[in-house]
């Protein structure tokens, strides 16, 4: 370390120490915010261990089921000819959809400078990373020969074999890899200043880990200015990636000749569906985090009100897209398309009704009223229902079309097996486990973002310009 760096470090420490006495103006004191928001980083309680153990058990069960499938063969699933895709691909599309939460809530709201996003953006970003990771597992789980999955990776080999870039599955793989990398960077970038806060407030091995992860963040003006540019840029860049990911997932279906799949509205319809389930999942997550970490002061009914409005808009959009899709089929009455639709609505009537209730009726009705939007109980029910309905929606897209394809002699039906259900449950538990672990070791509420907001509330007038006091704090 050079002399200058040491000097800076000393200054920084002095600054930190002087900061111990609360002096930042605002509705909440800095110290209290730090304490509140970093409370999740305290050593795990017994309850946390029990939760992690239960989730881990479900994941282990799912792994056992997957091993069973690998060692026995695909017959342990409910798939057959003609329904060659089932619950796994349903799970895949569903989790890719959920992964749009982070992008939607975090980047769009960041770019539109909606301040109410601040307490939830970290949870949403983390959710994106974990959902897309879980989603990425499904296409591999569903392979007939899982151990040859690397054939799909373009790697140089002696035989000059190359994957087929005309295949939508390869687009999928490319898009999902890009999204995993992009969303991880997005999460990490947002986490950086908070890791520094955690580093400064932790001891022992944790301190060392945070110190490495914080990459020497000191919070100088220059660092903040670079950080701001980088995060705005990432927020802007991640949106096209997110849109492309779900468009490509939609193309898995839309580019085929399967009746009911081959439809031009699929990409936008899937993106809207993804955002719908993503927003609903963020609401669920907000409620859970609020309860688990006692963040009632930071996640207020106002935030739920705003999320409710967002949900209303997306739900209306989804309903419109669904109506357009069905209306075209119904009006054209093309025999095989109509056959698929009538088979779906007859064989899966209860599911269809739950889907319409959960995605359209319930959210549109409930989210119209301020009182309901601000009621945590209602929001929990609505957001859970939306995601149940979205899972059903994916299922109703995939399975009925395959059951009644063009050749009536080869029609079939599908019922999921215990293996597929176990793997899907394990995916849910795995996601929850990743999140539980993440929330224990990383600040789950964006400390700096919330503090920035608090600080900004006391803007300093300099001439005619209003200058956020945070600018003065760092120099």
């Amino acid at each position, binding site marked *: 370390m050079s002399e200058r760096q040491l000097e800076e470090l000393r200054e920084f420490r002095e600054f930190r120490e002087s900061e111990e006495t609360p002096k930042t103006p605002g509705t909440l004191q800095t110290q209290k915010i730090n304490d509140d928001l970093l409370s999740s980083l305290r050593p795990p309680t017994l309850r946390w261990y029990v939760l992690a153990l239960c989730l881990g058990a479900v994941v282990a069960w799912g792994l056992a089921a997957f091993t069973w499938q690998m060692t026995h063969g695909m017959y342990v699933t409910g798939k057959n000819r003609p329904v060659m*895709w089932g619950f796994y691909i349903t799970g895949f599309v569903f989790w890719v959809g959920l992964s749009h939460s982070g992008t939607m809530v975090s980047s769009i709201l960041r770019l539109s400078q909606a301040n109410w996003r601040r307490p939830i953006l970290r949870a949403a970003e983390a959710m994106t990373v974990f959902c897309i990771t879980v989603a990425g597992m499904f296409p591999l789980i569903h392979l007939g020969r899982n151990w040859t999955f690397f054939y*799909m990776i373009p790697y140089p080999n002696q035989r000059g*074999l190359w994957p*087929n870039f005309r295949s939508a599955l390869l687009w999928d793989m490319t898009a999902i890899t890009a999204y995993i990398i992009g969303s991880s960077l997005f999460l990490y970038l947002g986490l950086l200043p908070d890791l520094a806060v955690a580093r400064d407030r932790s001891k022992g091995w944790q301190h060392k880990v945070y110190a490495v992860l914080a990459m020497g963040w000191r919070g100088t003006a220059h660092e903040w200015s670079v950080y701001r540019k980088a995060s705005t840029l990432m927020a802007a860049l991640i949106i096209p990636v997110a849109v492309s990911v779900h468009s490509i997932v939609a193309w898995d279906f839309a580019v085929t000749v399967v009746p009911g799949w081959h439809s031009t509205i699929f990409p936008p319809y899937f993106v809207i569906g993804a955002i719908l389930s993503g927003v609903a999942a963020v609401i669920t997550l907000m409620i859970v985090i609020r309860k688990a970490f006692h963040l009632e002061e930071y996640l207020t009914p106002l935030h739920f009100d705003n999320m409710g409005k967002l949900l209303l808009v997306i739900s209306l959009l989804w309903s419109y897209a669904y109506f357009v899709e069905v209306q075209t089929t119904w009006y054209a009455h093309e025999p095989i398309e109509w056959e698929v639709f009538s088979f779906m609505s007859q064989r899966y009537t209860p599911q269809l009704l739950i889907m319409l209730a959960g995605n359209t009726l319930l959210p549109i009705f409930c989210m119209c009223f301020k009182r309901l939007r601000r009621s945590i109980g209602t929001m929990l029910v609505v957001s859970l229902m939306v995601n149940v309905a979205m899972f059903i929606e994916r299922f109703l897209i995939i399975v009925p079309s395959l059951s009644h394809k063009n050749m009536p*002699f080869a029609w079939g039906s599908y019922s999921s097996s215990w293996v597929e259900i176990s793997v899907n449950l394990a995916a849910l538990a795995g996601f929850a486990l990743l999140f539980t672990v993440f929330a224990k070791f990383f600040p789950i509420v964006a400390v700096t973002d919330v503090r920035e907001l608090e600080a900004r509330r006391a803007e300093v007038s300099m001439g005619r310009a209003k200058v956020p006091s945070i600018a003065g704090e760092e120099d």
Partner: protein
Amino acid sequence: MEKLTSPYKWGMVIDLDRCTGCGACVVACQAENNVGICDKKEISEGRGMHWLRIERYWVGEYPDVRVRFLPVMCQHCQDAPCEPVCPVYASYHNPDGLNGQVYNRCVGTRYCGNNCPYAVRVFNFYQHEWPKPLDSQLSPDITVRSRGVMEKCTFCIQRIRRAKEEAKEEGRQVRDGEVQPACAQTCPSEAMVFGNLADPRSRVSILSRSPRRFQLLEHLGTHPSVFYLKGGGREHV
């Protein structure tokens, strides 16, 4: 289609007037191609391995009922929906106009099976075993497919290969009727005719120009290599 460099374009004509639905072709195919043997349970689950199936349709109302048969195997489409969707090129188009399937390249996404409008692709859900003495009957010319890969009718590509090699030795082209897949060879009513569609004088070419000809799901634009001749005259529908 234009990219074809081979002098062959294999195709088949199936005369539905001649088909009696006896099922000999199904058995012959199974014996020739090391197709897995499935038990009742596997078939009823929809996991049968038949590369060739005889679709049976009832026409009319009792007592005036007629039954119609439609043998369906891989149609070897010239614009095959199964080919572009395979992420690893396990499903590919060969210069003779056949849809090839590379078993040891297949990872088992089953995307091709979904996208095949004829539903003729079969997936090895099980690791098939041949009870004695059938295991001694396995053809050495063809891979025994493991579980987890997709397979389908190849027009008995091993026979085509052999005929082409013999012809090449003798410095000539494969003669019309020299090579036949097992199904066509076995058909007692000679409903199936196999040959080179690129040769306008071959039997299959002449029959494929019949006014009775049609193709399955023609409207999808898959350009199948299998032509059917309508059952005409004797039936009232």
